[in-house]
């Protein structure tokens, strides 16, 4: 069964210049998947999530969540979903245990069970000690974790996280990744939007890239990575070099006297480059990827074209 099945979803924001946020997207997410939805700012990710979660009215198309039609069974759709939105959206004057317990109440959980679940998830996310603190007094990372606890309190079949680790430090981000893997392993389908491509690479099994209101890539992470045919490495040298040496089968660039860049194709054996450099008396101290490899691919897929902004006016159609 698909956790989500979207057909020809469109969203037009009306106004002086109509904005086409989604231009007929199709998307399927299997039950149990850890699915990434990537795209640049304004691509339409949050609009799509907003429609699935009933926060945005769609213009056209069909959305099914666990075979429940959003148009005819909205209550059942909502009952399946837990949402961690991009922006903080809780009453900052409420105590955090009340925020989580009340959310359970909106989903129809008895008060006693709501308190038990709140305790469980607040403990899991390291917030139990702050349960009687007003939400406004929490740090940014704690606020993010609070929203995750709140989204999980009714134990949804589908958890949607819209940039959950934005502004979160690396250590906390890693621990949140572990927690999300655990939730996914227990059977919860997860859809994640993120700007951190390392995060998507580390967590997601399948992903879609959305740009300018259209899905430009919908595949598995494995397939996407396989599309990479070239990587760029930066070599830090032990001694300064004068003339740029030549190496067969690869392109070397001199950045400065002690730094070289080398483009290596997927089939090339890296040892050959070192052998060639050693033969010329060049010693390499260290080597690193110039950029995240997924990042390069991502940028290639969502090339920004200034003449075609993501907000397309109605008269352009």
């Amino acid at each position: 069964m698909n956790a989500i099945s979207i057909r020809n979803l469109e969203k037009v924001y009306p106004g002086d210049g109509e904005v086409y946020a989604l231009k007929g997207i199709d998307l399927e997410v299997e039950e149990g998947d850890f699915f990434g939805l990537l795209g640049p700012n304004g691509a339409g990710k949050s609009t799509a999530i907003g429609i699935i979660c009933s926060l945005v009215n769609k213009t056209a198309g069909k959305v099914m969540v666990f075979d429940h039609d959003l148009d005819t069974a909205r209550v059942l759709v909502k009952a399946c979903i837990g949402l961690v939105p991009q922006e903080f959206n809780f009453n900052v004057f409420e105590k955090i245990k009340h925020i989580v317990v009340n959310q359970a109440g909106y989903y129809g959980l008895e008060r006693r069970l709501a308190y038990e679940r709140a305790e469980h998830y607040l403990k899991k996310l390291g917030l139990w000690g702050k349960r009687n603190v007003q939400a406004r007094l929490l740090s940014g990372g704690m606020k993010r974790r609070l929203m995750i606890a709140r989204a999980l309190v009714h134990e949804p079949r589908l958890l949607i996280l819209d940039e959950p680790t934005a502004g979160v430090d690396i250590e906390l981000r890693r621990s949140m990744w572990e927690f999300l893997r655990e939730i996914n392993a227990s059977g919860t389908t997860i859809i994640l939007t993120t700007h951190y491509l390392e995060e998507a690479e580390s967590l997601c099994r399948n992903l879609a890239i959305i740009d300018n209101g259209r899905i430009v890539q919908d595949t598995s992470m494995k397939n996407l990575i396989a599309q990479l045919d070239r990587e760029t490495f930066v070599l830090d040298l032990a001694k300064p070099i004068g003339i740029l040496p030549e190496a067969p089968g690869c392109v070397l660039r001199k950045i400065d006297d002690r730094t070289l860049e080398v483009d290596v194709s997927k089939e090339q054996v890296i040892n050959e480059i070192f052998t060639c450099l050693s033969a010329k008396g060049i010693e390499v101290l260290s080597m690193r990827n110039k950029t995240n490899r997924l990042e390069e691919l991502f940028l290639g897929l969502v090339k920004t074209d200034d003449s075609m902004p993501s907000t397309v006016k109605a008269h352009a159609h």
Partner: protein
Amino acid sequence: MRTRQNFIAFKTILFKEMVRFTRIWVQTILPPAITMVLYFIIFGNLIGPRIGEMGGFDYMEYIVPGLIMMSIITSSYANVVSSFYSAKFQCSVEEVLVAPVPHYVILLGYTLGGVARGLIVGALVTLVSLFFTDLYIHNLFITAAVVVLTSVAFALGGFINAIFAKSFDDISIVPTFVLTPLTYLGGVFYSINLLPEFWQKASLVNPILYMVNAFRYGILGVSDINVGIAFVIIGLFVCILFSIGIYLLHKGVGLRT
């Protein structure tokens, strides 16, 4: 069947609302009581004896029902408009919107939260009034029914105001420029029989006149208008405002993009 879950969701909204206004009782419950004390002192004790009787009662006795009703109206309205607009402003309203809570449950929860504050304030003002005059209830059923229906009507009004409000200024426009004038001109301080014939008829388009007079009938047994008509009009207002509230929630006006 989700009846049980809906009832829990309703209780959750209502409980949250009650916790909110009782937590800030200095801002929500105390001020109307203090304002009413001033009304009782100035209009009842100082000016009242010079006015003499109205409708066969001391002036103080005559204005007490109107002042109680005034505090109920403003408190019920203010609670919902400020609470729901704050929830919109902080986006915490999304907590309810993403959950499987039917629109009527959201509307009932917030409305009865406003009614709860209106009734608590009304009870407090009634207690305060006992320091200034004796209070006998002519008809308990009519008194209670008018109080609850009026409170519901204005809580619904507050909800609709909050839905349309785009800034904090917008939630004070209706109370300042509509509610307060209508309340003052709704027979709180006088009988409309004192007005010239044209203004007596003009007063009849003011819904608050019916609420104040029906409540006054419940307590004192006197009214400028027919109590049956008053109930029909108040009931009509409740039905119309409830329908508008449901329609706006269904369309997502001011809530969903």
